[in-house]
């Protein structure tokens, strides 16, 4: 495909692999922040071909994975109401709550619909005046601008039967949480390219300085990932700790000012729970008070719905890079994509699902692994 094949060219990729092998004098531990990057790494076997040079720890950047159980339970409650059409991105539908998931609610009669954009949900609300349409606003800084736009437009258009169940999270506080952990092993980061397309990278500069870690803003194609790894390894070998931008075709230092402005008008920084990790202070976005009428939590009085994460699931350790998915006793046995215990097994971008789907060959001693 035009403008994509170039970033997947096997010959160029192999040359980059060789360059990384020549550059690394020891094995380094890197974390890719975004689930989309995890997917490319595992799908292309990048962790296999570079296993002597880098250990890739899969970070907390899958929005589906980190949405806390409590918010899922609130979504399930809303979706079960006969007066509600509950809309969501597709891969949230199978995330297990305390008792079931949104697909099961749908099978029992709930009106649950996958949409591709929050503006589609808003349009649905305009066409369904006798229903309450709720959109599950999850994701990092990448999805926040479009979700903010939906709320903004709803107010502009005077749509009264539209609201959002917000569970937005932001990347830098999660990186700080990982770096502050006493057993942190991460020596460098591949920052999430699309998050930085919106936010730029200025907020990462103090992190690189304070924690003395290289941070490379990185894209999602195999060539992007390999180049990002190479840039991070080169910094580590040189003893540098800077923010560098690999994803130059998409990211500028200051980011997208219009998107940031809209986010700032609609959202404010709040404390947010992360599935398997717990509450991280100032790590999420919530609606500003002036948009309270679009807040599903307030409109439907969801505050009383509380849930604790199941203790048997080690999603938290996986998300923080303490263990690989297959080091969890439940992995592949009582926790599988058909019957997931934790969210990282649910999404196609989740670290556990990525391992389950793509990396089984390595442990089954398949040829080439």
């Amino acid at each position: 495909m035009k403008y994509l094949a170039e970033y997947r060219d096997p010959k160029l990729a192999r040359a980059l692999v060789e360059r990384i092998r020549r550059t690394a004098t020891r094995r380094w531990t890197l974390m890719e922040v975004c689930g989309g990057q995890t997917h490319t790494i595992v799908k292309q076997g990048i962790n296999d071909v570079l296993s002597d040079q880098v250990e890739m720890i899969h970070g907390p950047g899958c929005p589906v994975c980190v949405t806390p159980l409590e918010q899922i339970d609130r979504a399930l409650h809303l979706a079960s109401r006969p007066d509600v059409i509950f809309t969501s991105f597709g891969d949230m539908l199978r995330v297990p709550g305390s008792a079931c998931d949104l697909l099961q609610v749908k099978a029992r009669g709930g009106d649950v619909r996958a949409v591709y954009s929050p503006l589609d949900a808003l349009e649905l609300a305009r066409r369904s005046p006798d229903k309450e349409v709720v959109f599950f606003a999850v994701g990092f800084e990448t999805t926040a601008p479009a979700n903010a736009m939906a709320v903004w437009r709803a107010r502009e258009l005077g749509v009264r039967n539209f609201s959002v169940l917000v569970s937005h999270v932001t990347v830098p506080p999660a990186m700080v949480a990982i770096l502050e952990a006493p057993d942190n092993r991460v020596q460098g980061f591949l920052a999430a390219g699309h998050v930085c397309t919106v936010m730029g990278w200025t907020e990462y500069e103090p992190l690189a300085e304070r924690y003395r870690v290289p941070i490379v803003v990185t894209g999602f194609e195999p060539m992007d990932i390999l180049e990002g790894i190479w840039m991070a390894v080169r910094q580590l070998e040189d003893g540098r700790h800077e923010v560098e931008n690999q994803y130059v075709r998409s990211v500028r230092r200051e980011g997208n000012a219009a998107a940031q402005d809209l986010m700032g008008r609609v959202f404010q920084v709040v404390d947010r729970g992360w599935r398997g990790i717990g509450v991280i202070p100032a790590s999420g976005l919530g609606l500003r008070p002036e948009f309270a009428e679009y807040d599903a939590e307030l409109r439907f009085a969801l505050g009383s719905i509380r849930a604790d994460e199941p203790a048997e699931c080690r999603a938290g350790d996986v998300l923080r890079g303490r263990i690989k998915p297959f080091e969890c006793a439940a992995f592949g046995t009582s926790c599988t994509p058909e019957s997931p215990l934790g969210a990282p097994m649910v999404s196609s971008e989740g670290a556990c699902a990525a391992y389950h789907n793509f990396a089984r060959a390595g442990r089954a001693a398949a040829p080439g692994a």
Partner: protein
Amino acid sequence: MSSLSSGPVCPVPRGQHDCVQLGHGSGGKMSAQLLREHFLPRFANVWLDRLGDGAVIPVEGGEIAFSTDTFVVSPLEFPGGNIGHLAIHGTLNDLAMMGATPRYLSVGFVLEEGLPFDLLDRVLDAMAQAAAAAGVSVVTGDTKVVDRGKADGMFVNTTGVGFLHDGFRPDPRGALPGDAVLVSGPLGRHGMAVMAVREGFAFESEIVSDTTDLSPLVASLREGLGSRVHALRDATRGGVASALNEIAAASGVGVELDEAAIPVPGAVQAACEMLGFDPLYVANEGVLVAFVPADAAPRALELLKGHAAGSGAAVVGGVVADHPGMVVLRTGLGGSRVVDMLPGDQLPRIC
């Protein structure tokens, strides 16, 4: 920050289902579970238990192939065809994959009150033309009408019988180490054509369903290679990945795919990129996978390419004795990954 205990083995798995979900119809693991837990224990017999595309059953003087399939699709019409094409082609193809030449069909309809006659007629025209083109006769049928809202326009069932040929019994259990794996055409066109219409996506070039009768391709393979054709499967719901997993499991062999050799049209690839789908799992209605000995692969390719529907055929991999039951894909980078059955339907990704 709270910290999770690294608890013991997770206890009872959750996600058990107390009612049917859409994922049970995906052709993936949930579909297999539905059959295993609810259908097979009740109907077990030597013919059903083979879990082929149909059954080969004894009749006086020999055996016949017998297969049934039910069709639901929304929208009923899509670029490249309608539910009528699918209903005829689907059963023809199931019979063909068993090595049979399709002969007689039954058709059954559940029609929804309010279905426009001109739409019904277009579907019936498609069925009549597809049957005539294949030289099969629709010899019996049934219609039922249900209240508006109780069916999605129409549901169609077709059942077919076909005649078998001596010395030609491709079998999902028949793949052998050393076989080459072929696909008869580019992947993912039907699934993405329907998805594009249903979801209102417009791509630069329209994606057209590949719905077609594959029995002429199978006839050529039979005439050219006979018993050297070890296994055939049409890669419908669940895509090529599911078809290959089923054969790998049934034959007790491993399958290795070469990512670079897998034909995926640019428009399908682009649509899949947008949604976060993998074309290996997208439905086809006119693509078969064939297992033949490696030295017969060039001839098989030639035979398939002699048909318009097979002009995009390709050798995409081979069969190994290692990792039985598992399909492994070699990436362009030299890495490898497992191509497992999906649990349910593919879900569009968030970003």
